[in-house]
């Protein structure tokens, strides 16, 4: 399922027209994205939470060539799955 499928399904479920459903999905994703970038923790009950984690610079290796490379410090979001979603998926 991709974003378009999510938009279609949301539109169907809520009887919204496509255009509105698209604005809704884009707005939701964009709002979460901006919060993550601003280093704000995002918590969606029953779904999960996003937080930014900081990683220090380290010396790594290009796995293909074996060449030694310096990896710059970086920030990456971490998604912690919520309990409800975890249980839903576990059981299948």
């Amino acid at each position, binding site marked *: *399922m*991709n*974003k378009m499928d*999510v938009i279609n*399904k*949301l539109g169907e*479920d*809520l009887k*919204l027209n496509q255009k*509105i459903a698209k*604005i*809704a*999905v884009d*707005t*939701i*994703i964009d*709002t*979460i*994205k901006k*919060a*993550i*970038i601003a280093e*704000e*923790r*995002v*918590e*969606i*009950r*029953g*779904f*999960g939470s*996003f937080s*930014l984690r900081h990683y220090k610079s380290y010396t790594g290796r290009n796995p293909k060539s074996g060449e030694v490379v310096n990896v*710059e410090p*970086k*920030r*990456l*979001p971490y*998604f912690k*799955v919520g309990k*409800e*979603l*975890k249980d*839903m*998926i*576990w059981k*299948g």
Partner: protein
Amino acid sequence: MTKLEIVNMLYEKLGFSKRECAHIVDSFFEVIKGNLAKGENVKLSGFGNFVVKEKKARRGRNPQTGKEIEISERRVVNFRLSQVLKDEINNKSTK
């Protein structure tokens, strides 16, 4: 940030009532959850993919007691960040 801020943002964008906006936000997460529960991945371009992984049963250890236990097979969800968002967060221009 919680769902409330997302609802408020949607309220500004769509001009629907807060109640309707809350319903839309809830439904959005329900759609994604329902799909993941079926074992299907959800790809949100420009954001990331939620990937369902099958884990085989394995032997593990209770780290506190050191006792060996059987960890049953299970499905878990992983979030794989989009390259676009990764670059955005680290202020790199995308190729």
